[in-house]
C-alpha cells in the first residue's frame, strides 16, 4: 500500500514532466517556474526548519558515550567516540557525517539453538548507505557543469575520475552505477525484511523511488534517448543568471528528470530527508562529554520545590537525636 502509493506518486510526477515537455504552453512553467519555486522552497524550507530547531535550547548535555571517557591521565580515552574537546567533537561529527561511524557499528542479532544469542557483522546497510550518499553528492556536484560557464577545472577533474573506466559513449559514470545499486539495495531491503516492511511508511518508500526516478531518467537521457545537452545547459544557465529561457531542442525526458528533481527539492525540507541537516544538530553526537569539567547551563532551569535539610531535620529531629546524628539546630 505504502509502496504502491509512492510508486503512483512518482509515476504521476513523471507523467506531469512528460506533459510539461510536450505541451508548448507548459514548457516555460515546467522548465523555469517550477524549478525556481522548488529551489526557493528548498532553501527557505531548509533554513526555516533549521531555525525552528535552533529556537529550542539543548537544556542538558547528553552525548551518547561510545568509548572510554577522559578521566585519569594514564587511562587511554576514546577521543573520537567519546570526545571531551571541541576538536574531538568535530572529529566525531566528521566521522559521523562523512563515514556514518555509528552505522558502521551495526550488527545483526540471531538467536541460535542453545539458546545462543549471537551478534554478527552487518556492514551491508552501512556500505549501501555510504555508496548511495557519496555517489549522490558527487553526482550533485558534477551537475554544476550545467550551472557554470566556464566549467571549473575541479568539476572536469571529478568527471574524469568518475568516468575513468571507458565504458560506452558517453562514458558511464561509476557513481551512476553505485547510486542505482545503493538505492536498489535500500529499496529491496525495505521490502524484503518483514520487520522493516512493518515499520516502513509511504514517506520511506517515496524518497527512495523519487531519487531512483531521478537517477534513472538521468541515465536514460545520457545513454539512451539523448537530449540536447547545450539546450539543457542554456536552460540551467538561464535559471542561475536570472535570464530564463527554454530552448526548443530540450526533450521530454529532460522534463521528467527535472520535475522529479524539483519534487525532491521541494519535498526535502518537509520530510525525513532533513536528516541531512538534522545530523549536525543531534545533541547525543555534537556535544563534548566534558560534563563534570565544564558547566552546562539550562536557559530555562526550572524552579522546583525541594525538601531542604532544615525541613528534613525538623521532620526527623527526634530520630536523629536518638541515633546520635549531629543536628544543625544545636
Amino acid at each position, binding site marked *: 500500500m505504502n509502496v504502491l502509493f509512492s510508486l503512483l506518486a512518482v509515476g504521476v510526477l513523471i507523467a506531469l514532466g512528460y506533459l510539461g515537455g510536450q505541451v508548448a504552453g507548459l514548457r516555460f512553467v515546467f522548465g523555469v517556474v517550477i524549478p525556481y519555486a522548488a529551489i526557493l522552497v528548498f532553501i527557505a524550507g531548509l533554513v526555516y526548519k533549521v531555525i525552528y530547531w535552533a529556537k529550542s535550547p539543548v537544556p542538558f548535555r547528553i552525548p551518547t558515550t561510545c568509548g572510554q571517557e577522559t578521566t585519569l591521565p594514564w587511562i587511554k580515552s576514546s577521543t573520537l567516540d567519546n570526545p571531551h574537546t571541541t576538536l574531538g567533537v568535530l572529529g566525531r561529527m566528521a566521522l559521523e557525517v562523512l563515514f556514518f561511524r555509528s552505522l558502521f557499528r551495526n550488527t545483526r542479532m540471531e538467536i541460535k539453538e542453545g539458546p545462543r544469542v549471537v551478534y554478527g557483522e552487518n556492514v551491508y546497510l552501512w556500505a549501501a548507505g555510504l555508496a548511495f550518499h557519496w555517489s549522490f553528492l558527487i553526482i550533485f556536484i558534477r551537475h554544476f557543469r550545467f550551472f557554470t560557464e566556464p566549467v571549473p577545472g575541479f568539476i572536469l577533474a571529478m568527471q574524469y575520475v568518475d568516468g575513468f573506466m571507458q*565504458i*560506452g*559513449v558517453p562514458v*558511464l559514470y561509476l557513481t551512476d*552505477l553505485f547510486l*542505482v*545499486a545503493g538505492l*536498489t539495495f535500500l529499496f529491496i531491503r525495505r521490502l524484503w525484511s518483514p520487520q522493516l516492511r512493518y515499520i516502513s511508511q509511504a514517506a520511506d518508500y517515496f524518497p527512495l523511488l523519487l531519487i*531512483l526516478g531521478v537517477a*534513472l531518467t538521468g*541515465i*536514460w537521457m545520457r*545513454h*539512451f*534517448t539523448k537530449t540536447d545537452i547545450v539546450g539543457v545547459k542554456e536552460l540551467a544557465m538561464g535559471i542561475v543568471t536570472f535570464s530564463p529561457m527554454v530552448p526548443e531542442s530540450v526533450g521530454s525526458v529532460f522534463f521528467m528528470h527535472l520535475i522529479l528533481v524539483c519534487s525532491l527539492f521541494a519535498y526535502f525540507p518537509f520530510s525525513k530527508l532533513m536528516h541531512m541537516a538534522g545530523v549536525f544538530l543531534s545533541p547525543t553526537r555534537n556535544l563534548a562529554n566534558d560534563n563534570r569539567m565544564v558547566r552546562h547551563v539550562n536557559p530555562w532551569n526550572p524552579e522546583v520545590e525541594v525538601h531542604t535539610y532544615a525541613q528534613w531535620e525538623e521532620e526527623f529531629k527526634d530520630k536523629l537525636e536518638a541515633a546520635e546524628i549531629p543536628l544543625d539546630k544545636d
Partner: protein
Amino acid sequence: MAKSTRRGFLKLAGVAAVGMGAKPVYDAFARRSAPEQPTPPAEALTAKRWAMVVDTRKCLREHGCTDCITTCHLVHNVPDFGNPKDEVKWVWKEQFEHGFPEQHNEFMSDDLRHKDVLLLCNHCDNPPCVRVCPTQATWKREADGIVMMDMHRCIGCRYCMAACPYGSRSFNWRDPRTHIAKIDEGFPTRTRGVVEKCNFCAERLVRGEIPACVEACKAKALAFGDLEDPESEVRDLLSRHFNIRRKPGLGTQPEVYYIV
C-alpha cells in the same frame, strides 16, 4: 563478437537499470545499429585472401633503399623516436639470418646471409595474436584474411606481441604525435598504450589503391594480390619461383612469401 560497443553497453546497462527491463531498451535503442545496406564503392579492391610476395632478389640493397618503409610510415603516421626501445615499425628490413633464423646455414652465400629482407606482418591464416587477444581488438577479417587492429578497443596488454613469432607488432610506449615528422591527415595517429602493426593498407584498398609499400617500390620487388585468384600476379610469381615463408613450422600460415 558483439556488433558494436554500444550494444555491449546496452546489455550491461540493461541489467543494471532495474525496472527498465533490458529488452525494450535494447530494441528501442538498437534501431540505428541495423544499418542500411552499404554499397561498396566500385573502385574498392577486394580479394578472398590477400597475400604479398617479396622478391628478395630484386630488392635493392646496395644503396640502402628504404622507399617502401618510408612511404608506409609516412602514410600511416608511424612515429620515429630514434631509439630501438620505443620503436614502432610496420615494415622494416633485417638481415636474412634474423628474418629467417631457422634457415641459418654456415655456408650460405654471403649475398643472401647479409641481405636485408623486408619484414612485416604476415597476416597469417592462423594468427596466434588473434587467438590470444582478450578483447578481440585484433581479429582476422573473414572476407579477405587481413589481420586487423582495432585501436579503439585495444587495452594495451601486449599479449599479442608475446604471441607473434615474427616480432611484427609494435606498442605505443609513449605518445606518438610528438615524433611524427609530418602528419598525414588522411590517417589517424595512435594514442599511447595501444598495439599497432601493418594492416595491408586496408584503408587504401577500399579506395582502390594498392598498398603503399608496393606502390613505392621502384625495383618492383613487391607484389600484392589475391591468392585465391589463379590469375593473380602473386599466384603467378609463386608458381614460377622458389619461395619460402617465415617459420612455417609453427603452423601460422603466413601470407607473405619470399622469393630467394
